[in-house]
């Protein structure tokens, strides 16, 4: 057993932390207020190579593995949830599907510019009636010679409003359903028939794009089928597992930042003649959340280590769900605590805790609600005992 980070990962963290503090943190309040995508930040991240952090060097990536990717997400999550979300949707689910199941030609053509940050990816799974329930997908793809014609639409697509490349899940055989009848496609946003229909107005992560996409007779060449026809569900679930792990890492960063803020204010703010740090209810709350954060940290990096050492079987799916579920809940609790300790300052928009509070809430919902994560975890546990649970 070895719980230390390798020298290259320590160096990477130093780089990412510096970048996050110098380039990301100063913009966090502004992109939230103005509802803006931090394009310039994404460009700089791409320039350094961070948008390809976990992809192989032969496809323009950095080759720092899943651990490196978790480090990136943790450090971004510490300073700006919106930026972390942009990056997570791009690397963690959008480009990840191509990385996991793309053929060498697809990787050369699509993964390389994505890893270099020259293009931005999004992940097209959710529909208005099929969120976590992927079996209800309505977007259809019909074979026509060397192409597929896509009709339908997706909602709540992170990065959807500006992504160049979207991995889209569509039904190719309605008779077969999720297992065998759903296929993943690599779609370029510039193709005719691809339309951004609407941008959502959200409570938090306002520096991100959450868009509704519409496909009308969108012609996709057959070579852009990702993985095998009919096996899109598997591709997407594998990507989601990766995304869940790294969302947990981003939550870890958010929780850590909240803890640091709470501690700072508790040692600064005086009430009734003493600093809040001397109040036992504050001490208890800090001790509890710090323990949870450490547990989360261990979980996240252990699961990242599993990915880096090729242990991505059934157990990984369950652990990735735990990272996302526990991470989002720890982050929410940590930020709630920080807000309570800051009192009035915590609820004014002049101060970043208010933003963190609004931002944090989405992590319990997107990339599969925490209820879905619990179903995933429970079904894995029961499967070990030979029981197939109904969701």
């Amino acid at each position, binding site marked *: 057993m070895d719980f230390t980070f390798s*020298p290259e990962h320590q160096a990477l963290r130093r780089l990412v932390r510096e970048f996050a503090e110098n380039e990301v943190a100063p913009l966090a309040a502004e992109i939230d207020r103005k509802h803006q995508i931090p394009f310039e930040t994404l460009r700089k991240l791409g320039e350094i190579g961070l948008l390809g952090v976990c992809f192989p060097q032969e496809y323009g990536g950095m080759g720092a593995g899943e651990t490196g990717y978790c480090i990136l997400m943790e450090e971004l999550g510490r300073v700006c949830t919106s930026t972390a979300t942009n990056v997570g949707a791009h690397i963690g689910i959008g480009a990840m599907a191509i990385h996991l199941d793309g053929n060498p030609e697809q990787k050369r053509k699509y993964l390389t510019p994505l890893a270099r940050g020259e293009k931005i990816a999004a992940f097209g799974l959710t529909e208005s009636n099929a969120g976590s329930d992927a079996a209800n997908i309505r977007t259809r793809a019909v074979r026509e010679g060397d192409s597929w014609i896509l009709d339908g639409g997706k909602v709540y697509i992170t990065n959807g409003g500006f992504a160049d490349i979207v991995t889209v899940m569509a039904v190719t055989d309605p008779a077969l359903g999720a297992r065998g009848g759903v296929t993943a496609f690599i779609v370029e946003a510039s193709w005719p028939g691809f339309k951004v229909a609407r941008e959502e107005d959200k409570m938090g992560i306002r520096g991100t794009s959450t868009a509704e996409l519409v496909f009308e007779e969108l012609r996709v060449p057959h070579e852009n089928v990702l993985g095998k026809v009919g096996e899109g569900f598997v591709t997407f679930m594998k990507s989601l597992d990766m995304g869940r792990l790294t969302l947990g890492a981003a939550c870890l960063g958010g929780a850590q930042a909240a803890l640091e803020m709470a501690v700072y204010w508790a040692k600064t703010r005086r009430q009734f003649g003493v600093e809040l740090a001397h109040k036992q209810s504050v001490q208890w709350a800090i001790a509890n959340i710090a323990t949870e954060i450490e547990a989360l940290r261990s979980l996240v990096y252990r699961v990242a280590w599993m990915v880096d050492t090729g242990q991505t079987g059934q157990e990984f799916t369950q652990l990735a769900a735990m990272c996302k579920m526990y991470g989002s809940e720890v982050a929410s609790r940590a930020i709630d605590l920080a807000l309570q300790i800051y009192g009035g300052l915590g609820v004014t928009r002049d101060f970043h805790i208010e933003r963190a509070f609004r931002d944090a809430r989405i992590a319990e919902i997107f990339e599969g609600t925490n209820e879905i994560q619990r179903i995933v975890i429970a079904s894995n546990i029961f499967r070990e005992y030979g029981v197939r649970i109904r969701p």
Partner: protein
Amino acid sequence: MRIAVVLGRVLDPRGIVVNRRAGRIFINREEYILQPADRCALEAALRIKDAASAEVVALPRTFLPDDDVLCQALATGADRAIYLTGGPLGADEALMARVLVAAIAKLGGADLILTGATTMDTGQSQLGPRLAEALNWPQVLNAWAVETADGAARAVVNAGAGYVQVEVDLPAVITLLPGALKPRYPRGTQLINIYRGVGEIAQALEQWPAADLVEEAALTPVVERRGQDFPPERERGVRLTGSPEEVARAAAEALRKRLPR
């Protein structure tokens, strides 16, 4: 053209807490960063390299327990890095000037030496002048910016009320102030590869034993560190109350007391 950049490291101040009363530094997170001024020197070298091709060689400003700063320099864009080993860790600037002069000679000389004007932790600023003295080169200290052209270097320095441009013939030593330039970030891929010791970049890092450069006797430090002390704690502020006139009067009175006669 060859530019030698001399770099050191410093404890990341965000990981430490100084307790003056206890006379101790608490290290919460033992992480090192490049000395900010040295990092500016590296940036200056890389800008010269970008503008007119040059070979940038990174050297340590003292003997270090690991090659971390050199790896960072390589990942950021230096062409070669020389890790000096076998000397006393944290050796003083007098000793290091001798070693570095020998190392530069072994490199085949250099046209320009760039380094930080001062260190962040101990405020040392002799390395540049000592190198210039030992090499008998001209020096420009505390520069804000550097550029080279036609066998000369031009540096911007602060001259009282304004800034002036100073020109020196190469070879020369120039030291840069911390914060002079916004340093670039290391390239991610290079960073990963250098620490993993893979790829072309790994070949750029060389290890030179100090004993091959100078005689054994020259490696004995002339400065010994016996302890540390802290400046006195800053006086606590006083909160003035009353009408604006009263507050203004009290503030003026307090200032008058503190002004030197």
